[in-house]
Each structure stands twice: as C-alpha cells, then as structure tokens.
C-alpha cells in the first residue's frame, strides 16, 4: 500500500489535507488546491482523488453530522495516515533528487 505511486494531483491534495488538519473536507480542500495551483478543479475531481487516496491507504475519513448549510447533508472529513506521511516524504525526496543540480534563474540571452 505504502509503495503505491502518487500522481501530481494526488500529492497536491494530500498536502492540502495535511495543511488543513481537522478542517479537511471536500470544499476546503478544493479551495486550498485551487488557490495554490491557480486551477479551478471540479468538486468531482477532488472527491474522486480523495477516494483514490483512501483506497491506497494514504487518508482516512469520517462522516460528520448533517448541517443545514449543506442542505441537510453530512461532510466527510479526511486525515492523513502514517502511510500517507511516508508517501509525502518519499515524494519530497524524489522531487529534491529530480531538481538537484538544476539552476533556475533569468532566461539566458541568446548569443
């Protein structure tokens, strides 16, 4: 389970769940991801990815009581598991290794 690969959106959403802590549910995750990536993801895309992360064992979820603001429907709050934390650290290591030696800066002038 822990060795399952993380896609780009999966990693972005997993990091959002870590950042949001106890307030991580569909809408808050979507807002966080959209604000940081500049892309307006559909609520369907967010929940599909969260479900995939849960299947991989990277997050767990619990259903809250129904609220009037949601038309009497419940929220599903997500929390990162130990396996999810390991996957994040692994993704960070891979990203550092991939970027290692790459110098970013102003575009060089053509000769």
């Amino acid at each position, binding site marked *: 389970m822990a060795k399952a690969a993380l896609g780009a959106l999966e990693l972005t959403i997993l990091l959002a769940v870590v950042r949001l802590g106890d307030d991580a549910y569909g809408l808050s995750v979507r807002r966080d991801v959209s604000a940081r990536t500049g892309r307006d993801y559909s*609520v*369907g*895309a967010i929940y*599909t990815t969260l479900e995939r992360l849960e299947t991989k064992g990277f997050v767990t979820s619990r259903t809250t009581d129904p609220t009037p*603001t949601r038309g009497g429907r419940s929220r599903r709050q997500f929390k990162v598991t130990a396996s999810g934390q390991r996957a994040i650290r692994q993704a960070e290591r891979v990203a550092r290794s991939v970027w290692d030696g790459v110098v970013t800066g102003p575009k060089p002038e053509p000769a």
Partner: protein
Amino acid sequence: MKRSPGNPPRAAERLLVSAGANSEFTSLVMGDLAEEFEQRERWDGAASARRWYYHECVRVAPYLLRDWWRERGLHDAPHIAKAVVSSSLAVYAVEKIVARVAEPAVIAWWRVVGQSPAYLGSMLCWTMLDGLLLGYLVSRIGRRAPVMSTLAAAGCWLAFWIGMNLMGGWTFVGSMGAMWYRALNPLMLTMGIMIAGLWRVARRPELSS
C-alpha cells in the same frame, strides 16, 4: 421554477440526483455545492450564484455518471435498453400513423414548393418533434436511470443515423440530397431527445431534496 433563498436551483439538483447513483458520493458532491452556493449567493448575489451552480453541474456530471456506472451500471443496463427500445418503437408507431394521415397534405405542399429550404426546414422541425417525444418517453419509461436512458437513446439514434448515412442505405434522407439537411437531421433528433429527456428529469417532483 420556484426556489427558496439560500437553496440551489431545484431543477439542477434533480438533474444531479438523477445523474448519479444516489450514493454517498452524490450526497457529498451536492453538499459541497450547496454550501458554496449559499456563500456565493451572499457575496455575489442570487443570479451569479445560480449561474455558477449550473456551470458546476455540467462539470461534475461526468463524475456522477461514472459513479452511477460503478454502483448500478450493469444492474440498470437492461432497464435502460428496454426504455430505449420501447420508446423508439412507440415513436415509430406514432410517426407512421401521423405520416399516413398527413401524407396527402405534405405531398400537395411538396408539389408547390419542391425541395426548397422551407420544405426541408419543416422536415427538420418534424424530426425535432420526433426527438422531443422520444426524449420524454425514454426518460419516463427509464425512470430508474432517466439521465442515462436519455443519453443512451440520444447516442444510439445518433450512431444509427450517421451509420445509415455513411452506408448510403438511408433512402429517405438520400433522396433529400442537401448536405446540410443530412447533417442537421440527426442533430435535431439528438437535441430533441436531450431537451425533452432532461426537461422531464428536472421537473420530477419526487426528486425534490
């Protein structure tokens, strides 16, 4: 359509409920949309919030349809097939009866105007009426999965019409010649099916949330 302040458009909610498997996934998606709608209505006004909601419905529809397919797809498939076949047969029967009654008048008119754009236009309207009737019937007969039944009917008829035209076996359309007519005819039928089918779903009172 009447709407209480703070609540998303009911017609759109009914479409969402009918598109999905009515599972927890549908409930979560609709809950999030309702929560954001309430905030947007306060910040941006009711009209803007409604526009946003309809836009989000279109974006989320493929995910709900996929959820339906995973939860109930194979279970509902025979029901959908039955709805498509029986509604198509019913429309075919109605078409035959009306064509027999109206034939003398249509032929007389055709002799006067020939294959003019007005004549071909009226034939396109006729196709649209067929589509509207078919869409209404298929969503009514396939009420267990009305959105999928409507999509299935539209897809089957579009594929059939295009296939027959490609094979050159559709003599009725073939005799009409004009390319724009050949292209518009299946589109009118498909549009009619979609409009009537989704209109009926959006008006179903039993799906009020």
